[in-house]
């Protein structure tokens, strides 16, 4: 266990591969969206999703950005990250194959529209919808 880093510990907590996916999301945000004001939107508990999708575990992995229950309504952020699961049954088969969907502000985003926890449209913010395997 000596030298085991934090990411490895997180994978031990959830050995199903979900942690690896979230760590990949973190790297994407760090490398591709460095100039954006990012917030992660998550319900505290979503009964349709596994526990690792809820806000407590998301914030443990995505430590660089705030994980908020009201991110879409908060003005100071211009890129909102949403987590969508292939297990939720809310995605089409084509969407489920993608790693993520990027929805610019003003455009319809099926991820947002189908996520029951959030408002139905994104009027002034970009949305990054991360597809969890």
């Amino acid at each position, binding site marked *: 266990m000596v030298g085991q880093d934090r990411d490895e510990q997180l994978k031990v907590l959830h050995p199903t591969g979900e942690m690896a996916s979230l760590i990949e999301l973190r790297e994407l945000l760090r490398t591709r969206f460095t100039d954006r004001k990012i917030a992660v939107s998550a319900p505290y508990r979503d009964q349709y999703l596994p526990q690792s999708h809820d806000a407590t575990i998301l*914030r443990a992995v995505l430590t660089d950005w705030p994980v908020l229950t009201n991110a879409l309504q908060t003005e100071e952020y211009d890129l909102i990250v949403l987590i969508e699961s292939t297990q939720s049954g809310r995605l089409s088969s084509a969407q489920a194959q993608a790693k993520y969907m990027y929805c610019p502000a003003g455009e319809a985003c099926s991820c947002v529209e189908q996520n029951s926890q959030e408002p139905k449209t994104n009027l002034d913010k970009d949305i990054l919808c991360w597809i969890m395997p």
Partner: protein
Amino acid sequence: MLDYALAILFMSGLASLGFGMAWLFGLRGGRRLALAYPLGLSSVGLVAWGMWLAEIPWIYIWTTAWLVGLLSLSFIVFKLTDRPPDLAVLKIRLPSLNIFTSLLFWLSLGSLILILVWLTTIQPIVWDSLVLYDWRAIKIADGWQVSDFYRQFVQNYEFYTYDFSHPFMSSIWQAFMHKSGIESSSVIHSGLILSILIYAGIIWKSWTTRLIFASLLLATEPSLTVFTQAYSSLPYFLYWLLIFLVWVDSQIKSSAQKSVLILIFLITLLMNRLSEPFWILIILFWLWEVWKMCPNMRGQKPKWLSVLIRGCLFVIPILAVVWQWQNVQATALSQVEIMDSVSRSSYSLDRYENISVILQTPLWWSQAIWLILFKNPSAPYALLALVMFLIVKTKSGQDKRLFWLGLGWLAMLLIALIMEITTDPENWLLKSRLLWRVTLPIMAWAIVVTTNWSEKRLSWFDQGNDSDE
């Protein structure tokens, strides 16, 4: 490796500061050395916690702690260079044994050292340790204040309760590590374990007793589980252990003991969840100390000024701590902006309206007793302490007091269960897994009293050795 070097430097600074405090408190010799790190860790933790609550930016708190630590360390090094200590005093006399007991002794000692190395370097893989305690530490190190913690869960009461119902003390210590770039922040507790082992070695002169203590601490299943909860449960458990060690240490008396206990108690108080009733014991201890300080009640001439000053010395810090913690919760509650949550706070009597459930459910009592006596992880320790109490015929009033204290704690566990069922009658059996943390003080108590009582009867490795120090 740089991580660990930095951590050791920071911890050495804390120990140096604590060494000076131990000197001020009047501790002597090995005790000054053994209690240096716990005192340094406690005082820096307490001050940092207060400053952080006062919204002082973490960068200033962290810089101050490093500066104070390095200055203390430089002072100690300067003094040691100026007047080197007599290392002969530290020479440890090992027991002289026959081949069989010698082999057993060295195997036991070697195993314990290996277990200690493994434990002090293990990483926590328990949910709350990483997702709550460690995460909060990372954010504090990033500069988050209390206000930032409640801002994330506007209109979300459950989120609020998760973060704020768990005490912040461990996260404050870890934040020092994270800010210094040390990811394995549980290393800060390793100094505490080492201090406790040294202190136990000073209190108990017999090698048999020392090995029994170390085995109960490091080589039993319930204890090992606590060690994997390095952020949430381990420091809390270690501080209760320290309280009992100071208590049974007959060489620490009067003002030195009280000074050490004040600090340790304050920190232990800050690591208690309000829903766990053991903090009541600390309040009772404080009241008892104040009572004892009133000379007129002991038939002596009253010195009211002295009583007033010393009373304030004991009562004000504890009130300040309780008030501050309530203040944090109240502030957070007001910001959550859910009026309903106020009635669900820890301080509303409404939550106990289900108390009649206990009276209406006869099965509850058998379930509660089963939980306390068998499912309770400290049960084997409490049983061992009871057996030792029955075997060792002691006339010591202190031992009897400790025994009754243990029984009182089991009663307190019952109170905890009553609180649990009254607040959540549908899920209380499920939530009884929280007994883990609740029973840690009982485990610490049982380890110390069992070891203390064993010294009077057991001497497998001590033939012909009066003193090993």
